[in-house]
């Protein structure tokens, strides 16, 4: 199965951005191990009522397409041209100026010309011209038109699952042509033929039936969080008893399930628990709406709606006043740009008002959902958090703007404000790699699978290279972000390209800096269980003098546990 991933230097040396001599319509993608994702499992597709579930393999010649696959694709295209003005206009007005060409992280990391956003779109546009427009039908290749063949479908599968819908190209396009929009529709059409990747299809099915992408059943979800509570007790010295599916809570908290499961997301999750305990927030978790992320967004907009439904439905059932959302990228694109349209209006909720500061979040008065980072920024602004940022002094931090929150939301200053208040050493990466020009981690939009590591590392090259730049210039050793996929994907990416840099969620840095009343000497270890003074010594800093352990000390905690 997975062959050896090439070494960083091998990738770097072999990289060329010169297009080949033959016309792009004459080249075919090579399904090479490490560069594509595995097809979806039959059960997962069937679980969602997906069409044409079957066993198939991209490396084989026969993809077992349904008999009338051509008609399905053509009708699918026509239907979407009629339903999405974005798609119709983007098919018609590209002038191929090439401004987008070198903006895509996959093009930069692979040199494959079909990863230039303009050509990625032309993969469909050529069919649009060749099958639907007169000039393309008559002149064919000369006019940039071609006929729909099985090879085209294979090419679509390869390249539309090699786009992370990050929208960076859209920032530079003089007409705002958004390849994410084209990829979203291309994937919808591939789904009509039962062509989906497993890393998307299986989480979608799990999320729909079980509540979250990881398929954590209610009791397991609770157990996972309880496991984190144990760590908190050990490392911070406070006991927390959060509630699950509690009716009458003021706030429903929803975060991507990755954060209750895997390192380093769990440290972010622990940080939420600590922060909410510190504030005495009246909130509840839900095991039913236990997923903030939405891999349906990478499937079809109907699937996105089916998964997203649970947030509002659960908030209604529990009778909460508003919803607080954790750190996540695509989750916030969906919450910001899609949720209210799909599953609103959320008239059962109230305009969010922070119970701690009294701030009313007017900017969320329709969706009634607030981002934990803006919630935190408001707390800091109102002096509600006792922060000692020197506790993060052993970190030299840089900030990774996530694609979705930057280009599909505009959430740039809130995290920076929080970051500046919790760390002393913060350095920005170069301007062309942050804010609206930020680079994707290379694994977004459901591509953070295990079998496509080379693809991910190549796609992540521009991001990693910018981190390397500040690592060498300023000694950056921590890459902070507000995205669960980033937390999962950037860690291996850093290990691959810039091994000295670690990855964390923004909230983890907040929790590190938070001075908690009654915090014990246990606080001398951070959430990761590392001795803070060891880390400080490594960074050449004076050790922190922690308060003396009182009589009961850690023992009391252990006794109280069971």
């Amino acid at each position, binding site marked *: 199965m997975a062959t050896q991933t090439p070494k*960083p230097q091998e990738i770097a040396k072999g990289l060329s951005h010169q297009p080949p001599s033959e016309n*792009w319509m004459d080249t075919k993608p090579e399904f090479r191990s490490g560069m594509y994702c595995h097809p979806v499992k039959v059960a997962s597709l069937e679980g969602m009522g997906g069409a044409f579930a079957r066993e198939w393999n991209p490396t084989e010649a026969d993809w077992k397409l349904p008999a009338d696959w051509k008609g399905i694709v053509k009708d699918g295209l026509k239907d979407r041209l009629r339903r999405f003005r974005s798609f119709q206009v983007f098919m018609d*007005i*590209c002038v191929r100026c090439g401004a987008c060409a070198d903006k895509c992280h996959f093009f930069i990391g692979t040199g494959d010309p079909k990863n230039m956003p303009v*050509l990625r779109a032309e993969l469909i546009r050529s069919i649009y011209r060749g099958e639907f427009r007169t000039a393309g039908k008559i002149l064919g290749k000369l006019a940039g038109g071609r006929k729909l063949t099985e090879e085209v479908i294979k090419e679509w599968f390869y390249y539309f699952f090699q786009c992370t819908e990050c929208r960076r190209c859209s920032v530079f396009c003089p007409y705002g042509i958004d390849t994410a929009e084209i990829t979203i529709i291309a994937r919808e059409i591939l789904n009509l033929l039962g062509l989906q990747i497993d890393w998307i299809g299986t989480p979608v099915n799990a999320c729909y039936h079980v509540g979250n992408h990881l398929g954590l059943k209610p*009791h397991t979800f609770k157990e996972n969080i309880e496991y984190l509570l144990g760590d908190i007790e050990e490392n911070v010295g406070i006991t927390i008893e959060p509630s699950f599916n509690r009716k009458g809570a003021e706030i429903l908290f929803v975060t991507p399930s990755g954060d209750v499961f895997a390192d380093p997301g769990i440290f972010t999750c622990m940080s939420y628990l600590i922060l909410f305990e510190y504030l005495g927030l009246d909130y509840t978790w839900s095991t039913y709406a236990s997923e903030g992320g939405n891999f349906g967004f990478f499937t079809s907009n109907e699937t996105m709606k089916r998964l997203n439904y649970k947030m509002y439905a659960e908030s209604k059932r529990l009778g909460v006043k508003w919803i607080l959302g954790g750190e996540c990228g695509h989750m916030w694109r969906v919450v910001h740009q899609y949720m209210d349209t799909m599953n609103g209006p959320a008239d059962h909720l109230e305009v969010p008002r922070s119970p701690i500061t009294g701030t009313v979040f007017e900017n969320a008065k329709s969706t009634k959902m607030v981002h934990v980072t*803006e919630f935190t920024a408001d707390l800091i602004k109102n002096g509600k958090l006792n922060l000692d940022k020197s506790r993060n002094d052993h970190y030299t931090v840089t900030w990774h703007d996530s694609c979705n929150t930057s280009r599909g939301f*505009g959430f740039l*200053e809130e995290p920076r404000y929080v970051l500046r208040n919790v760390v002393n050493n913060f350095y920005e990466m170069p301007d062309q790699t942050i804010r609206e020009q930020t680079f994707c981690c290379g694994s977004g939009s459901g591509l953070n699978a295990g079998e496509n590591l080379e693809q991910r590392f190549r796609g992540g090259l521009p991001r990693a290279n910018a981190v390397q730049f500040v690592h060498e210039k300023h000694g950056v050793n921590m890459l902070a972000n507000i995205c669960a996929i980033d937390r999962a994907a950037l860690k291996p990416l850093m290990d691959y390209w810039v091994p000295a840099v670690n990855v964390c969620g923004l909230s983890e840095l907040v929790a590190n800096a938070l001075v908690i009343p009654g915090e014990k000497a246990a606080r001398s270890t951070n959430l990761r269980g590392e001795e803070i003074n060891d880390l400080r010594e490594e960074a050449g800093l004076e050790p922190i003098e922690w308060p003396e352990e009182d009589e009961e000390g850690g023992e009391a905690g252990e006794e109280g546990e069971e």
Partner: protein
Amino acid sequence: MSFIFSLVAVTVLVLVPLVGVTVADLRWLFGVVVPYAAVATFLIGVSYRVLKWSNSPVPFRIPTTCGQAKGLPWIKTNKLDNPCSLPAVIGRMFLEVFLFRSLFRNTRMEYHQGPKVRYGSSKWLWLFGLLFHYSFLVVLIRHLRFFTEPVPMWVQIVEHIDTFFEMGLPLPGPDGLYVGLPLLAQSGVILLAAATLLFLRRVVIAQVRYISIAGDWFPLLLIIFIAKTGIIMRYVLKVDVVTVKKLTMSLVALKPELPADPISFMFYIHIFLVSFLFAYFPFSKLMHLGGVWLSPTRNLVNNSREKRHINPWNPEVKFHTYAEYEDDFREQMIEAGIPVEKEA
């Protein structure tokens, strides 16, 4: 290949009226019928395409946000790159349509071994693009002197500004370069230069050459030839503009009449190429003139958390309800101490 095809196509378009007028004397066809057909195709075609776009709704509010959103009141909003209100969207669209805001951001990626990925500023495309479009606009406005009587003051002002340097086009004469009359209109020369640069850019930059199709080469070549024939007529052949205007005015008054005095064949080539450009317009990428206004990633307010956006075809889908979920997991939930709606 697509380039050669385009070059041949444009050459044929030059030869057709040349032969048609000089050999077959089809002046009525090339002076009256073709221009009418072209303008009608242009006006109807462009309107049709835009109205067709308007039949597809914008189901979701999907602006590409290129700056700080409106959020907490003490955080400064970047209104023009992330519009929070209608006036802000109008501002963003103005910058986009009239100053090519997005193209102005352009960067150039440089890859060095190491690996080192670096980014440089790259404003050439923006500059050429802007020069090309604005000089084209000025050329169009100047041509209004052939289609209006009396010529409006603002057209004359544009012409006056365009001939600001009060010098002729330097042309080779018997004693070296000769600066003749009429006054040089900068727009025409800039148009030709910018179009040529955009053309060369397409030839020289490997990636751009790779993505180019006939639909890219052809309009550029066509415009270059239009500019060339126009410049030749104005400065070299000196077409009798009074006679030309007699024809053009008869066209706009819908009382077409070929003037008795002859008009140079160059005029017929020029007007045929222009007619072809107009007629070709609605079927081509040139429709970006209309499309730039309708791009949902640019022309929407980024306020979807504040105000609900309506999708006219919001699909009916099947949900997995909480009741179904509890039915699946009731026992485990009770065992784990998670509250349930129905006890077993």
